[in-house]
């Protein structure tokens, strides 16, 4: 079996589960999430097995223009698969809220598609990781985005979710417009849509080319949540079902960066356009850092806080991207996955039990469930970038590779941003331990969430002390 078939298999899994849900009407629809997660785990295993045999990675001629298994595709594909599996597992624990907002009688009759849509998005994300032509990039990106339109607005009896859906739809369509328009200009400037051809040709810094690139960068900014296309993030993250928020903030962002690496690499490394692209990205990064961190300072809602924090993290990653440090981009994303999933699993749990996303709902968590409080403390410390947690390394690498390359103002902004991070992440820790709990009853943790949280918390510490553990996964 060749590895390029895996995307088809993933789509196949999605179709089969969807049809099974429609025609066999299983009694407990949330089980579909577990089945999907199991099937994707098999795909992940197959992907890793294939990656070791070169002949399995051959791509047939009819596909080779659009698709490649080289470069960073393995990393971003496994990233997509792992995050989809985790999102499906999280959805399973989220089912009670989902049922409440999709049907009158709290039954799961309207939730079947919810558990299959992430699988389609996953196929799109995997394709994005391998796409090497503007056309295939666009098509796979749309597969992901359109799936997300549905998932974000899935809780149709919840106004917040609907509002999020509409906002995402409008801004997503706008960014798609930017992307297509940018591709057209790029085609006009280079005469090709193939990234491979662009890499091999002698690029000239013309206004046509830079304009096209600027449009593409802006639309990628939408995917990763960077200024000036960041405005949708807080509202959409807050309104969307929590597992989908996690999916958006992790898998979708990572795929955006994966595509950004593929598209921008030839232009960043070329002498003609390198400095211009670097400047654009650095300015975006600085603006993103400032916006994300300063807006996060005043948030009272944990989900919005995570939204702004995801903008802030995107700023750091963009900074690494701007100096062509692709390894740091991947490393940061890998640690970001660990921390953010830990955060969302905990939020998911609180949301299901207390029906609230506010930071207040974490008040006195230290009394209600000390172990969960410890896990959240470690997660928040990691997000803030406390040393000996996974979150520190990404920031350290960003600083290390940018100091001396970018101008001083950018670096100073990054430091201010990192310092501001301490304030708002520690605010959560403060409410965990220093405030009196609003409710006294102990929290019960569902099995899946429990093991996921233990796993991620342990991973944060292990990677924090021994970053080699994921350095090898990130590759070069």
């Amino acid at each position, binding site marked *: 079996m060749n590895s390029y078939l895996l995307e088809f298999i993933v789509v196949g899994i999605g179709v089969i589960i969807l049809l099974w849900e429609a025609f066999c009407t299983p009694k407990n629809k949330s089980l579909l999430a577990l089945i999907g997660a199991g099937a994707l785990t098999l795909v992940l295993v197959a992907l890793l097995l294939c990656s070791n045999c070169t002949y399995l990675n051959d791509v047939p001629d009819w596909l080779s223009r659009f698709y490649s298994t080289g470069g960073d595709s393995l990393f971003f594909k496994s990233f997509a698969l792992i995050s989809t599996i985790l999102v499906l597992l999280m959805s399973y624990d989220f089912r009670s809220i989902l049922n409440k907002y999709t049907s009158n009688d709290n039954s799961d009759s309207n939730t079947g598609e919810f558990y299959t849509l992430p699988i389609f998005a996953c196929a799109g994300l995997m394709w994005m990781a391998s796409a090497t032509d503007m056309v295939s990039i666009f098509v796979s990106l749309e597969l992901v985005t359109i799936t997300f339109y549905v998932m974000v607005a899935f809780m149709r009896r919840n106004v917040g979710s609907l509002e999020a859906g509409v906002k995402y739809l409008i801004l997503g369509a706008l960014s798609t417009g930017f992307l297509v328009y940018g591709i057209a200009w790029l085609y006009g400037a280079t005469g090709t849509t193939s990234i491979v051809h662009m890499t091999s040709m002698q690029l000239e810094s013309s206004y046509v080319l830079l304009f096209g690139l600027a449009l593409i960068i802006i639309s990628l900014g939408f995917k990763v949540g960077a200024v000036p296309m960041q405005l949708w993030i807080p509202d959409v993250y807050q309104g969307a079902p929590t597992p989908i928020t996690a999916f958006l903030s992790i898998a979708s962002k990572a795929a955006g960066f994966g595509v950004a690496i593929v598209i921008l690499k030839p232009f960043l490394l070329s002498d003609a356009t390198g400095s211009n692209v670097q400047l654009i990205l650095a300015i975006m990064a600085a603006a993103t850092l400032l916006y994300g961190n300063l807006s996060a300072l005043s948030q009272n809602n944990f989900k919005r806080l995570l939204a702004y924090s995801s903008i802030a993290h995107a700023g750091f990653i963009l900074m690494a991207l701007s100096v062509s440090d692709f390894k740091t981009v991947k490393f940061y994303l890998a640690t970001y996955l660990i921390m953010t999933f830990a955060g969302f699993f905990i939020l998911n749990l609180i949301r299901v039990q207390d029906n609230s996303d506010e930071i207040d709902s974490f008040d006195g968590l*230290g009394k209600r469930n*000390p172990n969960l409080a410890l896990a959240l*403390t470690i997660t928040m*410390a990691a997000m803030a970038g*406390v*040393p*000996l947690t996974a979150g*520190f*390394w990404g920031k*350290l690498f960003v*600083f*290390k590779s940018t*100091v*001396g390359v970018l101008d001083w103002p950018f670096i100073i902004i990054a*430091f201010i941003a*990192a*310092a501001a991070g*301490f*304030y708002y992440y*520690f605010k959560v*820790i*403060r409410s965990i*331990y*220093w405030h009196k709990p609003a409710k006294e009853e102990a929290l019960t943790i569902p099995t899946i969430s429990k093991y996921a949280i233990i796993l991620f918390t342990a991973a944060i510490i292990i990677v924090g*002390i*021994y*970053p*080699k553990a994921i*350095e090898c996964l990130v590759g070069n």
Partner: protein
Amino acid sequence: MLTLALILIPLLAVAAIFFCAPALARKITLGAASANLLLAILAITTHCSGVSLNVLESPSIALSLNIFENKGISIVMLILSVVVTLAAVLSGNCPKDREKLWFSSILLISVGAIGAFISTDMFFFFAFHELALIPTFLMIGILGRGDRKEVAWKTTIYLAFGSIVLLAGLLLIVNQIGTFDMTKLEPLAKYQNEVALLLIIGFGTLVSLFPFHSWAAPAYASAPAPISMLHAGVLKKFGLYGLIVVGYKVAPDGMAHWLPLLLVLLLCNIIWVGLVTINQKRLDLMLGNSSVMHMGYIFLAIAALIDNGSTFATEAAVLLMFAHGISIAMSFCLADRIEAKTGSLEINQLGGLAKNTPNLAFLFGLVGMASIGLPGLANFAGEIMVFFSGFENWNAADGFGPLQITTMIAIWGVVISAVYMLRAFRNIFHGDTVRRTEKVTPLSRDEKIPALILGLILLIVGIYPQAILQFFN
């Protein structure tokens, strides 16, 4: 391996506390602290070699620990850490049902301090110190006294600010030297002034250098006794240690550039904060402020090091760091006992305590005299060396430079210390007993032990400073 064990034993003990019954927490902690003390002595006497464990290929970062780097400064700091840790475990009263938090925090702070002092890798040097800060915040915020939430929050913000400025400075160093290895530090080719300023502000905030000092006294007053002991006694010395082993090594010219600024700031620490200390009405705030004030002397020694580069100044600084660490820890330990027995630390509400608890009065008198700088106690040896270091390599023909003038003004700090310490001692222990002190019982054996350990060390080092100075080679 011994070196690694110094870190591992407390960490394993934390894990054990997490999984065991709360009742066992104190025993486990006590065991770990005593084991660490013995291990440290063993490691020093057997000249055990360092360890190095590579955790990252590029950039190369290794968990490398070695107590014999840094010309013996690490050894002294290690001894200070393990001794104060043991005393801290024995001090204070853990509230019911909080044993796990209480004892694991003590151990984590101890690991952080030990790790920071014996790391020879810049990353772990920084990281271990940060590790110690988180339990400090949590303990102040959860179990502190008075306005604990505000105090903890203020401390968090100040120290996070200091750390991030420090990180910027360290990264600027690493970027130029190209390695995190602290044994390869050398004067930087450029950006010395920038690095020096970042380090002075970064390390300075952590050591409560004026004007970044206002977090310290409320934090120590609010924190539970073992935490004040560990932070004021041990952890705060990290900044001074860093200025000596990193700052002076990489930016001697940069530091010299900022010397006038440093001299003014340290004088503010001694005189300004000294006057503030005189004005305190509560014993814990007074002790907290006095600890800020005494940092000024150590900064003075560092300034002397910058000015004349003598090893004598380094030795003076480290000896005073040690003496101050022990004495301030003992002060907080005893202040906590006074509060436990009388229910108050307002100086004016107390009196005549010596009548019912002569042993407490004696021990507090001892540490009070030490902190004033009475000859025969460790602080005297440190302070006198600091003042002499200001005149090291000084030529009378050149007249008084800024350093000498600063030193002469700084000596007045001793008078200030005497004023507040003697007044507090008189008000609390002498005179007639008041309602609060009527039914007070003397210190029990368990209460005496931590103070005795620390007091004995003050005495030994005071009479025979060579006990500490011998480690400098």
